[in-house]
């Protein structure tokens, strides 16, 4: 649908700009407030730009509030989720390109877990982790989230489209299965994998519920768990809260801006009409 008149075009653009400002307002306010002093942030009427911009809030996060530890933990989780992505890719390839006994049954398992709400497995999975003696460990935080059924499903859908002849030819040339997977399949799957890498990064950077349940010890907190703790403890220090939030949000926004092309295109590739 194209707008007919100049006026219509103006109204549409105006609506978009107005909506865009409303959408970005919380981000802008967060960043501006994070540079204000504790006093200024509570000032009425509020100032738009910080009068004496200060990095104090950010320094405080790292000097006194263990955000350096939380950052390291979050990065560890991000790293392991990438390992998980590799396992998911392998499984997607296995389901897409191999014939073996019980394939349908195992794939049903994947489909069933895909549709499951997280709250239903939250308690039993915690009990399993507890029986394994993994509560309050990094392993316990990372392990249950490694495999994402939906990702296996998506990657399998792609793998099915890879021609068998290509793999057969490589086998005839004497290439081993693992060599084929890493040197032939992964490069072929690059478009879909690059989307998954970004989505996995975002999801693991943001992971909240599982670390919250498993980690009792501040030493194991992730940024998001640390931030929700900070909000409890420094309920009125909004400058500090905004700095903590900005520290979580801004890196993701930057990564998103850089890679958004792949993400948005990935949506068109995934075939949702």
């Amino acid at each position, binding site marked *: *649908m194209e707008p*007919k008149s100049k006026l219509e*075009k103006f109204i549409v*653009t105006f609506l*978009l700009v107005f*909506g865009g400002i*409303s*959408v970005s*307002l*919380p*981000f802008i*306010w967060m960043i501006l407030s994070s540079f204000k002093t504790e006093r200024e942030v*509570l000032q009425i*009427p*509020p100032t738009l730009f910080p009068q004496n911009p200060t990095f104090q809030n950010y320094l405080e996060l790292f000097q006194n509030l263990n955000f350096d530890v939380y950052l390291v933990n979050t990065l560890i989780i991000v790293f392991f989720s990438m390992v998980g992505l590799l*396992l998911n890719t*392998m*499984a997607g*390839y296995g389901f897409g390109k191999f014939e073996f006994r019980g394939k349908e049954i*195992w794939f049903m*398992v*994947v489909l*069933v*877990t895909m549709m*499951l*709400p*997280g*709250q*239903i*497995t939250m*308690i*039993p*999975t*915690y*009990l*399993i982790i507890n029986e394994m003696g993994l509560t309050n460990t990094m392993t316990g935080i990372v*392990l*249950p989230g490694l*495999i994402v059924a939906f990702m296996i499903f998506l990657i399998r859908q792609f793998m099915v489209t890879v021609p068998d002849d290509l793999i057969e030819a490589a086998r005839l040339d004497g290439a081993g*299965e693992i060599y084929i*997977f890493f040197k032939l399949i992964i490069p072929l799957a690059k478009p879909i994998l690059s989307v998954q890498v970004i989505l996995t990064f*975002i999801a693991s950077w*943001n992971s909240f519920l599982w670390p919250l*349940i498993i980690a009792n010890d501040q030493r194991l907190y992730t940024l*998001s768990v640390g*931030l*929700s703790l900070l909000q409890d403890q420094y309920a009125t220090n*909004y400058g500090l*809260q*905004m700095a903590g*939030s900005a520290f979580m*949000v801004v890196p*993701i*926004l930057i990564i*998103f801006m850089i890679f*958004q092309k792949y993400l*948005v295109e990935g*949506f068109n590739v995934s075939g*949702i*009409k």
Partner: protein
Amino acid sequence: MTKWKYKLMPLFFIGPAVLLLMVFSFAPIFLSLGISFTDLTLIGLADWSKVNFVGFENFVKLFQDEVFLESIFNTFFYVIIGVPLAVSSSLVIALLLSMVGKWLSSTFRLIYYMPSVTNIVAIAVVWGFLYNQQYGLFNYILSLVNIQSVPWLEDPLVAKFSLIILAVWKSNGVSMLIFLAALQSIPRDYYEAADIDGANRWQKFFKITLPSMSFATFFVTVTTVIGWLQFFEEPFVMTDGGPLNGTNSMALYIYQRGFEYNDFGYAAAASFVLFIIVIIATIIQFRFRKKDQTL
């Protein structure tokens, strides 16, 4: 290649993922069902012999538990108000984006998508500040036009709406992209044919655009309903279910029961109630969809 090796290869590829999935996602379904018929608490966890089978007692208790009933009510409130808002606003954004040039469209697409990638805790913290009754930006802006300060998070009813606004703001991005993809896949010929027949814009919109997007709308609605039924982080971070349980959702209630009171059996039973509601809601929507297609 030797035969045994060929048989082992699939196992090598799917083995690790399937094993982890079985242990941490599939087995828990049955474990959860089992636990929901017991009185498992922290004590039982240390000594399994202290765990008793209690039959349907947890489920009976749940439906007499006022806090739980209130959380069901709130969850339905979120779904009934939030889903239409979320679906229609993302549809409107997609339509507006499809009406402007490429540059404007891709720039604003980026802006509208931003909230979807950001961390919900950080977002809730920021919005908690915006919603603050005394120092928040929203009440300040309202005071400029002489509107009295709104108790955004202090009143049980208003707080529900505040959380819905935040969640709609946060969730628009993904649905918008799906709608946009659907809009772009409508063949131009349809509109050209309609032009020749002298159809006006509204006719084109209701007879071509909307019907062509019925699958996208269906997909977005189903996933949005499932998502809103599991509403958790927003009330968890911003209100902790309060004031007076006014914003407590089922998912949050399950978390509180399970991990704050360590009442695992009871919480598992509650999670099953939620699961069944999710399934019923999904089945109903599929039924409607079928009816729709026969028209």
